[in-house]
Every structure is written in C-alpha cells, then in structure tokens.
C-alpha cells in the first residue's frame, strides 16, 4: 500500500486533518510530518494574543499519523475491509516543549502490539530542531466495515 493510498483513506475533513506527508511505513511503525499552519483557527483563541498549539491537537496529530495511518496500513491486506474507523481508547502523553504556529513536526510511531483489533503504539513527536516536544503511548480499537 502506497502513502498516497493511505492518505486517501483518511476519514478527516480539511479542518481536522493533521497528517502532512508520510516518510516511511512498515509492519512495525510509521514516520510522518505535519506543519502547523499559522492560519489554523484555534490559534486565535489558544491563547488570546499568544498562539500556541493546544496539547489536545498535538495528541490528535500523534494519533492520526501514529495510530490511524499505521492502522490503515496494517489492515490493508484484509480483503473484506471497505472502510476503517479508529476509536482512540487511551492516551498517556508527556509534553516537554511548546509548539508555536508554523512549526513542522516529525511524528515517529512504533507498534507495541496489534491484537484483537487493538493497536497500541509508542509515539514521539519532534520539532525542526530535533527536540522531543511530546511522547507517550496511544491505543485505539480498529473497527472495520465489511463489504457484506
């Protein structure tokens, strides 16, 4: 499965899509990037006169690249799968450094296990300086819609 095919299967609309490019993907993990455009609407309110990327958006970005894109890849071989949904079921993330508007981040996710439709990953986000901005463990249940 190519990165274009994975990106095409993402279920998000443009206002809530936090996947830019996918650099590498395998059975064991995925690496991707995303640039936080300065015009993203939440910067106007988080915070007033002091824009900074909300932690919840950083978590979502880690999940979209690290969990959802990897989940799409891991289930690509299943012929009956028509559409895939991923429900985040737990996240435990430490935040180390603020992410300002315009920053391009690199997300690396390593599969811990994928069993009984549960995907659990160890995910790290780094900024352009190579500094870790957040890291943690994110898990989700993959729900598959069959053709039948």
């Amino acid at each position, binding site marked *: 499965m190519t990165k274009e095919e994975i990106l095409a299967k993402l279920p998000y609309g443009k206002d809530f899509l936090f996947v830019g490019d996918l650099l590498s993907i395998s059975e064991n993990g995925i690496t991707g990037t995303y640039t936080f455009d300065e015009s993203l609407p939440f910067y106007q309110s988080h915070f007033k006169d002091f824009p900074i990327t909300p932690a919840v958006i950083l978590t979502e970005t880690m999940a979209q690249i690290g969990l959802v894109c990897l989940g799409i890849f891991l289930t690509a071989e299943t012929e009956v799968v028509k559409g895939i949904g991923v429900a985040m*079921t*737990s996240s435990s993330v430490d935040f180390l450094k603020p992410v300002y508007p315009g920053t391009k981040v690199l997300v690396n996710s390593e599969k811990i*296990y994928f*069993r*009984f439709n*549960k995907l659990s990953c160890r995910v790290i986000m780094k900024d352009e300086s190579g500094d870790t901005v957040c890291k943690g463990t994110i*898990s989700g*249940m993959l729900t598959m819609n069959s053709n039948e």
Partner: protein
Amino acid sequence: MNKNDILAGLKEIITPYTEEKTALEHITEDTDFITDLKINSANLVDIVLDIEEKFDIAIDNDSMAKMLNVKATLEIIAQKQAENAG
C-alpha cells in the same frame, strides 16, 4: 490448577482495569466484564493479553469473542491449559 485458583488469578489481572471495587470483591462466575465491571473493549484486549502471559496459553479470535464474562473466561482458560498439557 483448579477453578478457584484460576478465578483468584483472573481477579488479580482484572483489578487495575476496573473502578467497580465492590463488584470485583464479590466476583462470581456470573460477573460480566462489561455490565458489572464497566470494562471497555480496549481494556478487555489487555486483560486477555495478561491472561495469555499469566496462564501460558494462546487465545485465538473465536475464544476472545466469547470472553465477556467470568464463566466463559474460566472455561476457556481451563480448556487451553488442558490442550497444553495434552
């Protein structure tokens, strides 16, 4: 390993995944993981992975689908252990 030993081991595994301490304290074969212990499907997967490790057995997808209450889980653990011994 008799049924009470398996139940004691199972209770220990479940403890970190439920806030329903009263229901856990009074765990019986009739206890349901979802309705009584309020455990979600994601944590059920973790419980099954812990069961595999503790009892040294492998759980397949069909067995996993049945492990929604204590009774079915005890039966599957005993059955898989018997298969290992055989």
